[in-house]
């Protein structure tokens, strides 16, 4: 009887360790895929996947897109740039104020959206984004979007007062061929930290 319990215990231990190892290595693989240099294009603080939403995507990209960018379109239709860090490489933080500085992009339509933990930030203004068609820009087409929990003049996206992981998305709908060819070199907005609480 004692021997039977010993075998059951050992079997359970093997299963638990194998599950932990299998799932742990999967999470690590998806994370490495997210952070790794392959299949990914970097442009300043922004990064984009070459196979996001594509039928050519590998299994790890497919799993990552399912988890963090469900129902994304193929890059030929929409290019999704994501930023987790500012232009100096510091992680984006909800307790800080930021200035996003850019100019009009070579695409049919573009937008900059702010997320906290992958979802919209609740705010009284119900403001989550600015786009090609609603941003205030100067006569040269340059614009600034301010991210802050306190009201700001001009293009302002409220950050709310809760902590969390801040993420920026820059979407290019029907990008010009020059933009697709130069994903790592086209002029994208800078993300500048302006102090923290």
């Amino acid at each position: 009887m004692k021997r039977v319990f010993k075998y059951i215990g050992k079997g359970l231990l093997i299963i638990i360790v194998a599950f932990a190892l299998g799932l742990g290595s999967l999470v690590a693989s998806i994370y490495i895929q997210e952070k790794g240099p392959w299949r990914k294009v970097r442009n300043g603080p922004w990064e984009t996947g070459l196979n996001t939403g594509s039928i050519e995507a590998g299994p790890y990209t497919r799993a990552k897109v399912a988890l963090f960018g469900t129902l994304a379109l193929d890059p030929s239709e929409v290019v999704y740039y994501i930023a987790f860090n500012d232009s100096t490489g510091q992680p984006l933080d909800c307790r800080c104020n930021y200035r996003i500085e850019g100019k009009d992009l070579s695409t049919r339509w573009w937008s900059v959206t702010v997320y906290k933990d992958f979802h919209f930030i609740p705010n009284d203004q119900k403001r989550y984004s600015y786009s090609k068609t609603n941003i205030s820009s100067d006569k040269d087409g340059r614009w600034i979007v301010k991210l802050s929990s306190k009201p700001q003049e001009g293009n302002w996206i409220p950050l709310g007062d809760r902590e969390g992981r801040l993420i920026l998305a820059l979407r290019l709908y029907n990008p010009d061929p020059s933009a697709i060819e130069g994903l790592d070199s086209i002029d994208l907005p800078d993300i500048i930290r302006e102090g923290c609480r």
Partner: protein
Amino acid sequence: MKGWKQDILAILILAVVVHLIALWAIPRLIEGMVEKGMLAKERCKLNAICCRDINVAGIDEIPMANPDSLFSRLVYDVSKEPLRIHLTVPDTGMYWSFSLYARNLDNYYVLNDRRLKSEYGSREMEIALVGPKSHYKKTSTNEVMVVSPSDRGTGLIRMIIADRYSAKGIEEIRELKKAQELSYTE
């Protein structure tokens, strides 16, 4: 010592199996959750295009959703018969597209307003969506046949709003919501 080697081998083999099964299952599980959300929470019907309100904080269930887009959704099952989809591009809006996703969330088909106008010379089109094993033959020359890699999947109509935050944008949303009904299934 031999027992330990066998245990480690068993752990490694089982870990690889768990890893591969989870990798295969993640997109399908998420797609299942999306389907369930559409059919149960949003009260959409299977094989019918379902209009949805514009996203706001608190109800944006899909991670990193586009706040400037109005969506119509479709959960389809073409295992028994093809699904006829009638699409109409509205007059307003910055961008319109219809996209289809397989069970593993691969975006296997997308058609936008520009391509529809340039390739088909129209604002309207008929799609016959068929399953991977279907022997369906087109019934008219105007019909476009699309083969789904899986029997079940989802579809999305995206309509970009120029400025959802302005009074003009709110009026545009109202117009686009009316236009959503111009696309339907049979």
